[in-house]
């Protein structure tokens, strides 16, 4: 009996340990689903005097490598979201991140999109309209780095916190930022090309196609690329030409064709994802496949396919969809009464990874681009 009791106690303990292990595993999986990705964070206070475009304010402390933690929402908040536009896969991924995270946390979303990067007036009007709709907070993806400071001041002055997502903004009243600098994206592309250049006997020749001149992101990618190559492979990466142009595929294709005709000694085409996606067919037509390699400064679903097929050598990813999630999380933290820069980072973004034909399978498609069949969603009602 005793023996039997002892055996049953042993079995119970074993069973208990199994249950505990299963629960721990389930908890770990849930924890992974609720945050759990690697980020670089900055804490402390945001002092505008120490801020330069494309860089975090020097007054902040960081970057600190940590794992992102998703909060629980104390109430069913309504969060307003303003995008420059929602007409390409990049912003669709941000939309996915924002909407999916809001559904998970049980908060409401009211999302608006201006017509594009020229529509700053429309964005200002839309944000003011959101503020009038009694949203609890606003997540802004600003069209302009410095042109919306007044807007943010006005909305924050009405007691509505504003945080920034994806694009950097100057605004001293901004409460938090969920973003990755495009300078860093260009830097990563530069790290890749520098690594290749250091393996080569002679300097490599590059034509750089940043994207639209005067945009808030394209010039940063070029600066970052130059910084990386001059630091890591001094004198070994020669930028022969910089070709600016809108990110229409036909526009970029023409620039590439002309660059190929101009520079027979070209080794790398580096640039925006639309150019990188257009490049393989131009290289095929010009008979330069293998001679000229393509490196992008960011990644899109079509480019991901090009990488999988080995047509594009590398593209950094900023895990666009995760940034959307982080923005919602940050706003929920603020509305829960937490202090940015102290209780959670003032500025944070996923750790940039470089996607190549040999490693593309190791990254989550959903974290980069959202669900494959995702269609734009503009509003979510609070409550689970």
């Amino acid at each position, binding site marked *: 009996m005793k023996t039997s009791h002892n055996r049953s106690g042993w079995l119970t303990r074993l069973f208990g340990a199994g249950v505990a292990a299963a629960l721990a595993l389930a908890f770990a999986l849930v924890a992974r689903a609720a945050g759990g990705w690697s980020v670089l964070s900055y804490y402390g206070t945001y002092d505008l005097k120490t801020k330069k475009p494309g860089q975090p304010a020097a007054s902040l402390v960081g970057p600190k490598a940590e794992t992102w933690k998703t909060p629980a929402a104390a109430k069913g908040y309504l969060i307003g979201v303003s995008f420059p536009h*929602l*007409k390409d*896969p990049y912003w*669709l991924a941000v939309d996915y991140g924002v909407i999916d995270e809001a559904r998970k946390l049980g908060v409401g979303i009211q999302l608006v999109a201006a017509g594009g990067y020229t529509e700053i007036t429309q964005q200002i009007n839309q944000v003011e309209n959101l503020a009038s709709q009694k949203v609890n907070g606003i997540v802004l993806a600003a069209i302009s780095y410095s042109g919306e400071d007044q807007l943010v001041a006005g909305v924050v002055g009405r007691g509505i916190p504003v945080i920034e997502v994806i694009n950097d903004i100057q605004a001293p009243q901004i409460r938090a930022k969920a973003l990755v600098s495009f300078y860093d994206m260009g830097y990563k592309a530069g790290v890749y090309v520098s690594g290749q250049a250091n393996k080569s006997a002679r300097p490599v020749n590059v034509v750089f196609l940043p994207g639209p*001149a005067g945009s808030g992101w394209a010039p940063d990618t070029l600066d970052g690329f130059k910084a990386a190559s001059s630091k890591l492979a001094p004198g070994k990466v020669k930028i022969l030409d910089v*070709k600016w142009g*809108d990110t*229409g595929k036909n526009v970029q294709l023409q620039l590439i064709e002309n660059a190929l005709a*101009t520079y027979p000694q070209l080794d790398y085409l580096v640039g925006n994802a639309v150019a990188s996606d257009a490049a393989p*067919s131009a290289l095929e037509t010009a008979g330069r496949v293998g001679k000229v390699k393509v490196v992008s400064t960011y990644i899109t679903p079509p480019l991901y396919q090009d990488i999988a097929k080995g047509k594009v050598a590398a593209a950094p990813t900023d895990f666009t969809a995760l940034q959307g999630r982080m923005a919602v999380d940050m706003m929920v933290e603020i509305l829960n009464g937490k202090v940015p820069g102290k209780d959670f980072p003032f500025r944070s973004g996923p750790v940039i990874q470089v996607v190549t034909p040999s490693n593309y399978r190791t990254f989550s498609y959903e974290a980069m681009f959202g669900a494959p069949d995702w269609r734009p969603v503009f509003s979510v009602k609070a409550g689970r």
Partner: protein
Amino acid sequence: MREETAVPFEAASATVGFGAEAFHRVLIRVGILPILMVVLVVIFGVIEPRFLAWQNIRTVGIQSVYLIIVSVAQMIVLLTGGFDLSVGSSIALTSIVTGSVLIAVAPDFAAIAKAAAAGVAMATLIGAVNGAVVSIFTVSPFIATLAMMSIASGAALVVSGGVPIFNFPPQFSDTLATGTLMGVPAPWIAVGFVVLLVYLLLSWTRFGRYLYAVGGNAEAAHLSGVPVRRSLFLAYLLAGALTGVAGVILTARVGSGEPNLGATVPLESIAAAVLGGVSLGGGEGTLLGAVLGAFFLVFLRNGMDLIRISSYVQMVVTGVLLIIAIVADRYIHGR
């Protein structure tokens, strides 16, 4: 002795006079554009000999096809005294419709034909609506086509969800973009076909004459028995169909259905047509002019890229040359 020397002198001055007059006549006939092009070819060719390489000439030829077709479409509408701002978003919607059909049906030759037909049909429908709004409801072409621009680009985004349609069967681009027939690239065959068709319509049919009459003076045309409304409607319909052709081959060129394709085309096509001597006021202009104007814009960009003029300066140079060409044209024609 004095008389002997006088004769050759007079003869010489007469020759000079005749030469200047002939030159002026040539200028009037062909316009300033071909002369500007010859000058630029020499400049580009001297600075960068690769500009004149066959590979590059072929590239410029392919690059200019799309703008040539849309500029011809634009010219047809310009002749009637209107213009079409919806050509860009029409290309985007054509691209999305073509891409969707291509992905939906099996990748064979019939699928390519179906996808291309669906794209052209979409753009033709856009042209028909433009034509109906302008001719039946007498809405100004500016407003009618501006509204259509918004509708079509919105529709392209609704259908695509903002994402390009990719993973096309390679046969599509292999046929319509890089394919050749007896050594002639497919886009050249398309542009040749379009130019021939429009030439026949403008020069050999009553409809062609009507277009000029409607644009010259719609009321006088009406009183002379010209079916003004029908001509207007058909002009926009035809422009829509031609834009669809451009949209399909541009889609094949970029190898994916793009919801933002052709955004720069509306203003470029108007500039090209005007550069080629087509009047913004209607009733005046030639097919050759529109073709040359479009070719000029593409060839200029290519040449400036090859001689390594920076992207910023290129914008300034393009604008300056546009003004010079148009002012010179006015001067030659004494307007």
